[in-house]
């Protein structure tokens, strides 16, 4: 017999039956219902749940879209357009999937910024963070590839640029380039493999997210004070206390989502996205989707050769570096204190960093000859300074005061 650990007591015949064969109800009970979380979690802690919701929504709408999509360079754009015009609820599913991807990124950026602020990347949550970074990278790949499937003017231009970046890599460059495109230039093979990969990656995401949440449950959730939970008094059961907050934030988030979905579905995308791809015509400005803009700027900031490195290759290295550096954040940050709440100096740097990323994003949306490249270079430099200098060395100059426990903080507030 299986040992009866935890508080789960199967009540119905069916759940008793399952309990000894595949204890799924028990899993749900132990990991959601009787799951204890710190009682001072604020609304920023609800974005993990919002992300699960958004992923589900992307997968469901994506399946519907995929059933109407024809991965053929001649008819891809038309098939999509046809579905949105004449398909049953096509007018809803099309924008839902597209606007949904933007809101997925809005949620992931808030979730990520939250983790960075409260020091959730620090021990013992390194694996949670690293899995998160992998999720983020996979999301970017999925979104990029999905955007190409529309086979619009802008998506075709984006693939050629992205493929060009892969080609800049030494040794494997041309192999990567040809593998990505399925030939020497964009064409039918490109679209085919992109379709397959775009349908596959969301399930990789599901897998990574299961691991991510498993890891969160293993080490327990951090909280706005960054302090470890010291007694049971500092926790609450997830259902109903935390859950009701989650439901509340989700519905507010959905109001914003609905506003864009129903009233301005084109706001977050580019007008060129409504022009069918034409290999003989290139759009005047190639602006990637908003969520890539900061990284796009960092790529464009590199206009000079560095020693033997050509500017393009160095640009690609900076771009890759700006993403991969996130993987090392748990070790770059040497502070003993987790939460920025109790680190006044770090807090200033943190907000400068956020402003810097927004600034980089804005620069990315401008055409190259409007803004001096020096601004992009300064922004890029600060991005790396934040991770490579501020994170490891700032703690040496910090004198931080820490409260003794979560309880103490809660009492002080009252």
């Amino acid at each position, binding site marked *: 017999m299986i040992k009866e650990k935890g508080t789960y007591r199967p009540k119905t015949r069916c759940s008793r039956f399952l309990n000894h064969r595949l204890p799924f109800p028990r899993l749900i009970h132990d990991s959601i219902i009787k799951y204890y979380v710190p009682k001072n979690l604020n609304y920023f802690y609800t974005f993990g749940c919002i992300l699960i919701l958004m992923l589900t929504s992307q997968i469901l709408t994506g399946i519907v879209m995929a059933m109407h999509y024809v991965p053929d360079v001649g008819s891809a754009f038309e098939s999509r357009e046809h579905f949105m015009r004449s398909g049953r609820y096509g007018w809803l599913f099309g924008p839902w999937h597209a606007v949904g991807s933007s809101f997925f990124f809005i949620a992931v950026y808030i979730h990520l910024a939250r983790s960075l602020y409260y020091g959730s990347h620090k021990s013992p949550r390194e694996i949670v963070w690293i899995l998160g970074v992998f999720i983020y990278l996979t999301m970017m790949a999925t979104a990029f590839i999905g955007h190409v499937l529309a086979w619009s003017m802008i998506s075709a231009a984006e693939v050629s640029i992205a493929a060009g970046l892969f080609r800049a890599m030494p040794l494997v460059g041309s192999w990567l380039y040809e593998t990505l495109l399925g030939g020497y230039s964009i064409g039918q093979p490109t679209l085919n493999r992109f379709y397959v990969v775009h349908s596959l990656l969301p399930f990789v995401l599901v897998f990574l997210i299961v691991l991510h949440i498993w890891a969160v449950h293993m080490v327990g959730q951090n909280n706005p004070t960054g302090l470890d939970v010291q007694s049971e008094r500092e926790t609450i059961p997830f259902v109903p206390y935390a859950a*009701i907050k989650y439901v509340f934030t989700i519905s507010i988030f959905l109001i914003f989502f609905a506003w864009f979905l*129903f009233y301005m579905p084109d706001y977050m995308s580019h*007008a*060129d996205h*409504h*022009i069918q791809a034409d290999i003989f015509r*290139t759009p005047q400005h190639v602006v990637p989707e908003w969520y890539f803009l900061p990284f796009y700027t960092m790529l464009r900031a590199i206009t000079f050769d560095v020693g033997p490195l050509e500017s*393009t290759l160095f640009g690609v290295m900076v771009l890759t570096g700006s993403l991969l550096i996130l993987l090392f954040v748990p070790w770059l940050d040497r502070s003993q204190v987790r939460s920025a709440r109790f680190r006044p100096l770090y807090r200033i740097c943190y907000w400068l960093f956020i402003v810097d990323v927004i600034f980089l994003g804005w620069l990315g949306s401008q055409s190259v000859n409007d803004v001096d490249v020096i601004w992009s270079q300064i922004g890029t430099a600060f991005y790396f300074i934040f991770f490579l200098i501020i994170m490891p060395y700032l703690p040496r100059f910090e004198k931080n005061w820490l409260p003794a426990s979560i309880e103490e903080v809660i009492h002080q507030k009252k």
Partner: protein
Amino acid sequence: MINIIVYFTGMGLSIFWGTGFTKAEVSIHYPLVRPQQQKWSFSGPFGVYDRAQLQRGLKVYTEICATCHSLKFVAFHNLRALNYDEQEIKSFSNQFAIKDGPNEEGNIFTRPANPTDHFPAPFANDIQAAFANNGAIPSDLSLIARARAVPRPFPNCLTDILKNYTTAGADYIHALLTGYETTLSLEQKISAGKWYNPFFISGESIAMAPPLYDGRIVYDDGSPQTRDQYARDIAAFLTWTADPHMETRKKYGLRVIIFLTLYTGLIFFVKRRIWADYDKGHRS
């Protein structure tokens, strides 16, 4: 204009060839003049299409624009949304000729269009279209109202979210079609077959001859027969062709948002209750 395109394309391409970016000496922005924001029946969260206006727009399209521009995503039966009945649509579509076939003898033949057919294209292919238009291809107009949006400067781009500004495409079409002589200065040397138009999004001159002038089309509903009115009507019509489900979407949107607002309010009170119980339980 070609120079500019070449320049930008070159810049895009330079990434692959590793020459990197250079900063241009001067930067010219197109359009030279931003479109004015116009009043539209379909703007705002409660905006709907004005059926009479769409019908007039259809007239402008069929009588003028259709000689050069296709409208490939629109089928004749879609015109039911413009309040035409089946009979009207049938006789309307019959005016258009469609290539069909092969018939039982294996020949391609021409027949009158049916309501299920899409608007036929004026040119057989892009090369023919370009040949007839000084090398420029008249774009398909079905999606044009969503495929053109002059970027809005800060802070408009943000306040647009609150103001629900979604008519950039219609504003652009209206400005382009009425913008031909507004600031024409004769020093501007325009190459043969190009017309100066400061509202054109990708250059200072456009290969489309001014298609509209006062009195060109006869309206039978008493609307002013002016260039401005024609431009408004065609812009509204093209907004409909680009976004035929806008009204349904807004209708659903209203319900969803009302529901979510009530739901959020409800959850807020439930949350207060749950946490009040918790606090009570833990004080004693």
